[in-house]
């Protein structure tokens, strides 16, 4: 028997899909800005392992000499990113959804199991509520990162008027580094997120668009046991 089970509320689907293109514009415009002083790299001593970014990368994305354009878009779309983020956080608080999203005592152990499972080391499915431990950690971390981006962003946007914030963020140069590092963090999050969504399959992906999931009930009886609804669900990421 198949059964339709509600998963993502409409509000969360809106916040999710609204954020996606807005964050993309923020990262793109941020790249146009970063290019004008692209000093960051990973390495030790005089050895550079990774330069942010190679010229070929800039060339492929048509980045060079667009600083003013990048700043204009960044300081327009920051409002959308900020307001959508605030709305999402407020929604999770007032709807009680935060209880499903915040890590709890078991989350770190569960997250470890999820990792082992994903690496094909551990057989058997880890505990899966609406969100598993790894998801709880990731989806809470991304909100903290968002707050971090807004605070470090404000610190480098108005370092004199908001001098206290700039100091709090480690000073002007440090705030710019953090702002950049967080952006790299989003890109890594995005890659893992896409990988997990592909691994989790259609039923899971459909839910972030339609809001519902299709669940196979174990008992023949069409009257589903509500308590089992969530704990039985397929692994979803």
């Amino acid at each position: 028997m198949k059964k339709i089970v509600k998963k993502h509320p409409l509000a969360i689907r809106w916040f999710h899909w609204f954020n996606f293109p807005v964050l993309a514009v923020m990262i793109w415009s941020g790249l146009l800005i970063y290019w004008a002083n692209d000093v960051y790299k990973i390495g030790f001593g005089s050895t550079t392992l990774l330069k942010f970014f190679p010229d070929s990368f800039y060339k492929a994305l048509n980045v060079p000499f667009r600083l003013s354009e990048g700043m204009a878009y960044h300081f327009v779309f920051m409002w959308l990113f900020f307001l959508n983020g605030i709305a999402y956080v407020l929604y999770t608080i007032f709807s009680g959804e935060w209880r499903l999203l915040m890590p709890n005592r078991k989350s770190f152990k569960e997250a470890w199991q999820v990792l082992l499972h994903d690496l094909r080391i551990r057989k058997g499915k880890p505990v899966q509520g609406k969100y598993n431990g790894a998801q709880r950690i990731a989806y809470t971390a991304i909100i903290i990162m968002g707050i971090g981006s807004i605070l470090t962003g404000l610190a480098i946007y108005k370092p004199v008027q908001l001098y206290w914030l700039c100091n709090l963020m480690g000073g002007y140069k440090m705030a710019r580094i953090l702002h950049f590092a967080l952006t790299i963090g989003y890109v890594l999050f995005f890659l893992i997120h896409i990988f997990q969504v592909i691994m989790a399959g259609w039923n899971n992906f459909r839910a972030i668009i339609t809001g519902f999931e299709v669940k196979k009930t174990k008992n023949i009886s069409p009257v589903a046991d509500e308590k089992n609804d969530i704990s039985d669900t397929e692994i979803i990421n």
Partner: protein
Amino acid sequence: MASFLNNLFTKNSKLNTEQLIQKKTILSFSFFFLFAAFAFLGWQWLRMQPADSGKTSTPLRKVLNTNEELFASILSDNNLAKTYPVSEAANPARVNGNLGMKTSFDTAKWVMNVIKAKGDTLKLKLDDIKKLPKTEIVFNFKCIEGWSQITYWGGVKFFDFMKAYNLSEEAAMKYLGLRTPDNEYYVGIDMPSALHPQTLLCYELNGKALPMDQGYPLRLIIPVKYGVKSLKRIGDMYFSNQRTPDYWADVKGYDYFSGL
């Protein structure tokens, strides 16, 4: 297909689970792609908006100006750029840009023309500036490109200058304008930022007269703005209640306010 279309107009309660899943899925995805299409069209619309002379399109410029109003409201003489001990200052300081200083220039003949509200011009020599009380500042100079450098400057507070030369009528106007002697480079600055206690008419760098490439004999240092506003080699100073022209905002599409 036909049965699906039929299902779309059938009440949910009359469909079996399989049909309901199909119906809900297709409806949701249709709305999803519809909104995605609207978002894409909105983006295309934004990209196609006519740009002002500075290449920034009208809707973006409107938001930037709104940002300015909002963030200008937190501008305060009590909010100061962080200062540092002289020992931390870079020596030599980075030179970035020579706009307005490419033409030959007779330093001996230099005067600053202060064009007053009523149109008469005050011609001031460097000694007329230097005789006013000197102020020094070591702060983190911030370039709009994203780099910053701790630098050590000396000069006269713009506020003190305005007071000393009885420019109270001019100080009450909304904007200050500065341009180089060759008129090639010019900046516009809102008066509250100009009158900020850290804004200097600057004639010294690292305790010595300004080098030529740093704007000898007199330049602006305005720590509440990006470096683009700290015009080198001041030729004319003027005042207006309308926005004074600004090279980077008018020609290159940057934010006019560019406040920090």
